[in-house]
C-alpha cells in the first residue's frame, strides 16, 4: 500500500509547472466580465436596494403588530421542521429500497422521478382540485368506497397546511432520493462484503456502514433543503393561496402579499428579512461545506 501511495504524493508535492500566455489574465478578465456585470446589476443592486427598502423601523412595527405575520412565521417553522425532515428521512429510506439492482425496481425508480420531472404548476393544480372537498376525486372515492364524508381538505386551516406540506414532500422527494441514492452508490462495496463476512444484520449494516458514510451528505442535504424550502412559494401559493383566511401563509408568500396585494413594499421586504437571522448562519455553514471542495 505504502509503496503505491508514494509516487502519487510525490507528484502532488511538486507544484505543476504552468505555461502562461502573456495575456492570460486579460483573457480571464474578458471571459468573466459578462458574469460580473450580470451579478452586479441583478444580484448586488437588488440585494442592496432590498436592504434599503426594508430599513424602515415603521415597516417592522407594522409587521410585528400583525397577527397574520406571527402566524405565518410559526407556519414557516412548522413547514421547515416537518417538510424538510419528513422529506429527507423518507428519501434516506427509499434510496435504500431503490438501490437494489432488480430490473423492476430500476423501472420503478425511473417512474419515481415523475413528480420531479413534471413541472410543479400542473401537479399542484391537480392536487388542488383532487382535494376539493365537494367535487374532488379524493372525497368522491372516500364516499363511494367507504361511505365516509371526506374532510374539508383545503377549507380547514390545519388540514390545508398539512396538504401544503404533503404536496411539498411529494414534489421534492424524488430529487433528494436521487442525491442520497448517488451517495449510497459511492460507498465502496467491500465495506458491505466485510460486514457480511462478520455476520452483520441488515440493520447493523445500515448503522455501521451506510450511515457513517452517508451522514455528511445527509446533513448537507438537510441544510440545503431547508434554504430552498424557505423559498418554496409555489407549494403554498398555488395550492391554498395562503387561505383560508390567510392562515396558511409562509414568509415567502406573505412577503409577496404585503408588497403586491396590499401595496406595502417596505413591509413585504421587512417580512422576508425577518428570516435573515436564521438564513445567514445556514448560508455560512453551507458555503464552507460546499465551497471547500472547489479550490
Amino acid at each position, binding site marked *: 500500500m505504502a509503496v503505491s501511495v508514494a509516487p502519487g504524493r510525490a507528484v502532488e508535492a511538486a507544484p*505543476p509547472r504552468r*505555461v502562461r500566455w502573456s495575456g*492570460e*489574465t486579460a*483573457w*480571464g*478578465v*474578458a*471571459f468573466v466580465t*459578462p*458574469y460580473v456585470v*450580470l451579478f452586479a446589476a*441583478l*444580484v448586488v*443592486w*437588488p*440585494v442592496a*436596494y*432590498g436592504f434599503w*427598502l426594508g430599513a424602515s423601523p415603521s415597516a417592522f412595527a407594522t409587521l410585528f403588530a400583525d397577527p397574520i405575520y406571527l402566524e405565518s412565521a410559526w407556519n414557516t417553522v412548522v413547514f421547515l421542521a416537518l417538510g424538510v425532515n419528513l422529506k429527507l428521512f423518507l428519501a434516506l429510506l427509499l434510496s435504500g*429500497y431503490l438501490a437494489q439492482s432488480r430490473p423492476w425496481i430500476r423501472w*420503478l425508480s*425511473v*417512474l419515481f*422521478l415523475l*413528480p*420531479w*420531472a*413534471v*413541472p*410543479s404548476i400542473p*401537479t399542484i*393544480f*391537480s392536487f388542488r*382540485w*383532487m382535494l376539493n372537498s365537494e*367535487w*374532488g*376525486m379524493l372525497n*368522491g*372515492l372516500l364516499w363511494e368506497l367507504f361511505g365516509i364524508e371526506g374532510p374539508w381538505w383545503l377549507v380547514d386551516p390545519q388540514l390545508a397546511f398539512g396538504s401544503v406540506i404533503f404536496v411539498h414532500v411529494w414534489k421534492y422527494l424524488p430529487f433528494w432520493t*436521487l*442525491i442520497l441514492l448517488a*451517495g449510497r*452508490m459511492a460507498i465502496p462495496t467491500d465495506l458491505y462484503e466485510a460486514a*457480511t463476512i462478520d455476520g452483520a444484520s441488515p440493520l447493523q449494516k445500515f448503522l455501521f456502514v451506510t450511515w457513517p458514510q452517508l451522514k455528511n451528505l445527509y446533513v*448537507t442535504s438537510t441544510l440545503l433543503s431547508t434554504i430552498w424550502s424557505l423559498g418554496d*412559494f*409555489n407549494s403554498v*401559493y398555488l395550492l391554498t393561496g395562503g387561505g383560508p383566511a390567510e392562515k396558511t401563509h409562509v414568509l415567502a408568500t406573505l*412577503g*409577496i402579499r404585503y408588497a403586491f396585494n396590499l401595496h406595502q413594499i417596505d413591509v*413585504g*421586504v421587512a417580512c*422576508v428579512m425577518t428570516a435573515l437571522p436564521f438564513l445567514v448562519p445556514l448560508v455560512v455553514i453551507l*458555503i464552507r461545506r*460546499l465551497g471547500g*471542495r*472547489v*479550490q
Partner: protein
Amino acid sequence: MATSSLPRAPLIKSATTYAVRRGLFEAGQILLGLVILVWVLLPIYHMVMLSLTPINEAFGGRFWPDNPTLENFHTVFTQNHFFLERFWLQLANSVVVALATMALVLVVATLASFAIGRLKMPGGHVISNLALLTYLIPMAFLAIPFYRIMAQYGILNTRTALVLAMSTFAIPYAIWVLRQYSENVPFELDEAAKVDGASPWQILWLVYVPLLRPALIAIGTYALLLAWNEYLYAFLLLSTANQHTIPLTMGYFLVTDDSPWPLLMATAIIYALPPAALYYAVRRYMVTGLTAGATKA
C-alpha cells in the same frame, strides 16, 4: 447468504424458515413498490382523467369520467375559450423565454467557469464563492426588490426581464456544476494545447467545451426547465396577456370559482409533456450533473 452462518443441525427447519422469511420479504418489497407507484401516479392520473372529462361533468368527484372525450384538447388547440384566447402566443412566449435563458446561462457560465478554473484569474476564488452565495438565496426572497429594479431598468413587462431573472438564479448553479465537473478534466490537456500554440479561446472551444458536454447538457436542461416552470417571477414581471407565459395562462383560471378545470388540466398536460420528455431524454446527464460533487459533501 445469511443462512450460511447458521448452525448446521436444524437444516430443514431453517430452510423452511428461510423460505417463509424470503416470501414475506418479497411481499413487502412488492407492496412497497405498489405504494410508491400509487403515490407517484395518483395526481398525474387525476390530471389526465380530468382533462378527458367533459366540462359539465367535472363536478362529479369521479374516478373515471362517464363520457371521456378529447374535446378539451381541441378547445385548447383552437383557443376556443376566454382563458385560452392567446394560448399559442403564450406558448411561444414560454418557448422563447426558456430557450433564451438556456443560451444566456450556457454562454455566461461556460466563460466564467473557464476563466475561474482554467485561467488563473486573480480573485477567481471570490467570484466562485459569490456565485455559490447567490445559489443559496431563496428566489422568492429576492422577488420584491428584483421587481423594482426591473422597473428602474425600464424593462418591466418584457420577456427579457424574465429571462434575466431566471438567468440570475441559474448561472450560479451552472458555474458551480461546471467547476465541479471540470476538476476531472486534466490540466495536462490545456498545457499540451498551449505548448502547441493554442490561444485560450481555442482551448475553450476545442478542449473545455467538448469535454464538458455532459455537464453542459445537464445545466442547459436545468436552465431551460427553470425558466419554463417559473410562476412567481413571470407573474410579477409580465403584466399584459401578450407577454404572458403558460404558467400565467393557467394561473388566471383561478380568478373565478367556477373555472373549467378540465380545460385547465388539458392545458397543463400540453404544457407538462415537453419538459418531462426532455427530462427523461437527458436523464443520464441530469443525474451526473445534479449529483456532481454532491456525493463528496
